[in-house]
């Protein structure tokens, strides 16, 4: 089994602690079937693509995780890029609405890469997978359309009366001395952002799905989205297939069968002709 990135530096006061859903992501992406599929799609060997093909299959994939939390998933993907994508030259970028999560993810990813990507031998230096940035944002709103090759999303999927509001631009900039109760309230709010998904647990996921066709690379882009049973994964997949233009959605990982139902699934969303 591949090592799970160390998150001992992360304070779980406002950040989601790696749990069953996070580990399902690690297991699914590093499974033989999924890593074979991804390595074929992002083959680093130049192909005989026509010269005017600006996006040849050999360019470095941009791998983005939305809502990184502790960074355990993106850190794992970056550290194991050779196994998962068949290449180390991926560009890893994470987004989160929580500043602490952005800082934590950068540290998790850089540490995981440093610990796991050791040179093959002293004489052959091999570069390490670069973690290019953590940015604070609502989903992937500041990302350039069509630029994302691999999008990972472990959403707030728990059904709740309403989805929590988004943090405003300024509220995390000034660290004030909070009373015990005010800090508790603030921490609870940030934690609720990590799990509370509003109606059917789908309010945030629906917004991300809507952004997928615009944000993914039109040729080789692929997204992985985790859903729980209450999100009605079969209906979600049918909806994606209904986008037309060759959009596909398949379950590629699952865990925790309960009475014949899969509690959590990971759905791969991609286009093929």
């Amino acid at each position, binding site marked *: 089994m591949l090592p799970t990135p160390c998150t001992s530096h992360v304070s779980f006061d406002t950040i989601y602690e790696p749990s069953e859903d996070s580990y399902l992501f690690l297991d699914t992406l590093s499974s033989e079937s999924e890593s074979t599929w991804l390595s074929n799609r992002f083959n*680093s060997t130049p192909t005989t693509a026509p010269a005017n093909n*600006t*996006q*040849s299959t*050999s*360019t*470095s994939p*941009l791998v983005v995780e939305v809502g990184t939390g502790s960074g355990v998933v993106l850190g794992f993907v970056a550290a194991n890029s050779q196994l998962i994508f068949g290449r*180390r*030259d991926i*560009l890893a*970028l994470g987004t989160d*609405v929580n*500043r602490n999560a*952005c*800082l934590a993810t*950068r540290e998790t990813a850089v540490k995981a890469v440093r610990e796991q990507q050791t040179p093959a031998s002293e004489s052959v*230096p*091999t*570069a*390490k997978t*670069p973690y*290019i*940035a*953590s*940015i*604070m*944002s*609502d989903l992937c*709103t*500041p*990302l*350039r*359309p069509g*630029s994302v090759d691999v999008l990972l999303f472990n959403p707030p999927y728990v059904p709740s009366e309403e989805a929590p509001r*988004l*943090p*405003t*631009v300024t509220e*995390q*900039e000034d660290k004030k001395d909070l009373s015990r109760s005010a800090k508790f309230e603030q921490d609870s709010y940030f934690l609720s952002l990590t799990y509370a998904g509003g109606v059917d647990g789908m309010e945030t996921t629906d917004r991300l799905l809507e952004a997928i066709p615009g944000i993914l690379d039109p040729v080789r882009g692929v997204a992985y989205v985790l859903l729980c049973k209450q999100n009605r994964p079969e209906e979600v997949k049918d909806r994606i297939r209904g986008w037309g233009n060759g959009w596909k959605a398949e379950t590629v990982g699952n865990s925790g069968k309960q009475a014949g139902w899969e509690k959590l699934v990971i759905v791969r969303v991609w286009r093929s002709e």
Partner: protein
Amino acid sequence: MKVVTSNFITCAVKDCKSFPLHFRDAKLELQELDFQAEFIQNIIPRLDWDKLQITANELGFSNISDTKPNDDALNNEQILRDLHKLLLEVQIMEGKLICGDCGHEYMIKEGIANFLLPSHLGL
């Protein structure tokens, strides 16, 4: 935040999405990374070179070539090493990113750019 990031981010305001954003008052830090020619050779083709030039000039790296390296230049180790440094080793730690169209300013602190929006511009 590494300089290469600037090639993948736009204004977060839905009806704007201007690209590239412009650095102001940027404080830079150099973090060394192992160099491998193939890495840079595989990154160059996917960059919007005109936009990278704008960014590089704003950050004070004015010796970047006018055209995207191809053929011979893609095998020139000095060119690749310079780009490795600019794209992957230089980090923007503090400063602002400013949209040239709508004027919105995004703060960068501790290397983290903040693209959250005031509520009237969000969703």
